[in-house]
């Protein structure tokens, strides 16, 4: 799952990016409003975390332009502006959520997860595909009651495919949602990670749940 963080206060920007990455999110970071708009328009983020007071272009300006161009990415406003008027203005401009600084990091994570569920139309934090069970809050995976230990990247790949259960997901889509903008592009890195993931989640004697659709991509579930 890929997040864009637009925050100009460096200590907060750095710590949030670190925490989100450790929570198995791919995170693009910028402290500049104009750059933030460019990132948001150029990529398909799952969630955008947006400060309001930003240099060059403020957060509400970014949001207005995104919505004006029918970019429906879920946006969480993260700001020190705490009045009811500010919150109403932020939500009326098109934000999906509003969190006032200072905040608990765990709450931010919970709100991001809620926005992810809303995007992929999952009500429950747990995704079940056959006998495969994914706890998207604890970031843990089981098959047949047996826990499967995944690396961060493998988990990100599995969660993204699980969020799009039953859909053929292209390699480009996978790349866009589990790799950050600054990651070194590689033609077969997605295939390699799909291979790693397949080895861990497939069981002998059980039907395959992660299948390759030749020339198109991958599909999780039937």
């Amino acid at each position, binding site marked *: 799952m890929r997040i864009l963080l637009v925050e*100009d*206060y*460096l*200590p*907060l920007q*750095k*710590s*949030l990016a*670190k*925490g989100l990455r*450790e*929570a198995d999110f791919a995170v693009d970071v910028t*402290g*500049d409003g104009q750059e933030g708009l460019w990132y948001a328009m150029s990529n398909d983020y799952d969630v955008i975390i947006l400060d309001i*007071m*930003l*240099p*060059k272009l*403020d957060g509400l300006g970014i949001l207005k332009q995104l919505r004006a161009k029918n970019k429906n990415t879920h946006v969480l406003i993260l700001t*020190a*502006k*705490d*009045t009811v008027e500010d919150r109403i203005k932020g939500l009326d401009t098109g934000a999906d959520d509003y969190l*006032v*600084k*200072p*905040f*608990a*990091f*765990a709450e931010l994570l919970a709100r991001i997860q809620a926005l992810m569920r809303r995007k992929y139309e999952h009500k429950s934090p747990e995704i079940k595909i056959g006998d495969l069970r994914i706890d998207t809050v604890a970031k843990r995976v089981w098959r047949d009651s047996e826990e499967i230990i995944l690396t961060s990247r493998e988990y990100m790949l599995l969660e993204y495919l699980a969020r799009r259960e039953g859909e053929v997901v292209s390699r480009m889509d996978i790349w866009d949602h589990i790799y950050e903008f600054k990651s070194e592009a590689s033609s077969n890195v997605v295939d390699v990670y799909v291979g790693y993931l397949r080895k861990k989640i497939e069981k002998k004697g059980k039907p395959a749940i992660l299948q390759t659709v030749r020339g198109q991509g991958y599909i999780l579930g039937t």
Partner: protein
Amino acid sequence: MWSLKSRLMYGMISGMTALLIGFNLIVYHIISHELFSQFDASLKSAANLISASVEQDDKENKFDFEFNIERMPEFAGGKKSAYYELWSSDGVPIRKSPSLGNDDIVRFASADKTRSFKSFVMKNGRPVRAIAISFQPHIENDSNAADMPHSLVLVVARDTGELLEQLRFLKYLLSIASAGILGLAYAVAGIVVRRGLAPLGTVAEQIDSISEDNLKSRIAGEDLPDEIVPIQRKLNNLLERLQASFERERIFNANVAHELRTPLAGMRSIIDVALTRYRDSEEYRCALSESLSVVNNMEEMVSRLLMLARNESGQTALTKEQIKLAPMVDKCWEAFAGKAAEAEIVFANRIDANLVCKSDAAGLSMIFSNLLNNAAEYTNRGGRIEAAAQKTEHGIEIIFENTGNQLTQQQTQMVFDCFWQGDASRSSTGVHFGLGLSLVRQMVELLGGKIRAEVSNDLFSIHIYLPLI
């Protein structure tokens, strides 16, 4: 302190009492004078009548008394008695009225040798008023005109009991009437004063209903008397100033809260993320170091806020001394010279080396440092910073100018406002809080000067006007 109502009542009633007493005294005096004048005229007529009835017999040197007592029965005695007594000039009694009986009237001489009035009490206890006249009786047979007539003294007195009774009644009547008038006046004054002061009560009620929560309220001016309208206007002006002051404080507090929230969020996020899992000591050290850096920035901001508060409450002690401006600017620049050199910024101090100003060294140093720090921060790469100064009619003008301006003329009006930042990115480093120029303006004003900002194309300049002394 007496209430306004009491003062007005006291004033009105005292005034009215004094007027009534004066009026009563005058009325009493006039009536009394008139009554006594009539009484005296009657006495005088009686005395003239009696004196005209006395004749001197030239041969026997006797006096004939032709006064008919029946025509004036009061001299015979009775309740409304009148008295007369006639003496020769050497004091020998000649005749007296029957009303005197064995008694005598006090003989007194007239002041002008013809007539004189006197009030006294008779031996029978009755108050009387008497006239004394000296006269020469008519001589019965004037054939022997060479004989000189004898001079006689006549005293005629009348009982004044009834007159004094009338005057006492007049006193009583005037006193009762005055008391009644005063009582009525008190009641009327009470109503008038209460009604007259009612608008004050209305204003007081309106003031009472205004609290810090509804400072937008104003005291209504309709139906207020002309005397209260200026007070109402001044109170409304005061409320306006109070509201503006509260609003400024509210905005300031909101800004302080806002500016503290961001570093607090940063610190909390650093700590939260550090605690999400077990880490090695280097990672914890790194988190602590980042937190410390945030704390240092917050401390700097709080220090500046405290300095603003101290300056505002007049707790900053200033010591004025002769200061050479050019060396002080050079000294202040030293702290930023390195940073400026990295950005290839050229600094020129064009202040006359001998130009001096009597001011507070610490305050002036703070002003110069803040302005030069800002200039070093926002001047474009390869740009230029200049300091200049010149004597003016009233003091000294010091100018700090730098290239790389991105502010509009309109924004220069706001650069000295607390927490105002021309570009939100200035807060990203956590070093700039939008307080530096507020502090500068405050200090300039404490030093008795003025400050303004100006932009011209890519030039931004600050002009400080300081008094010479």
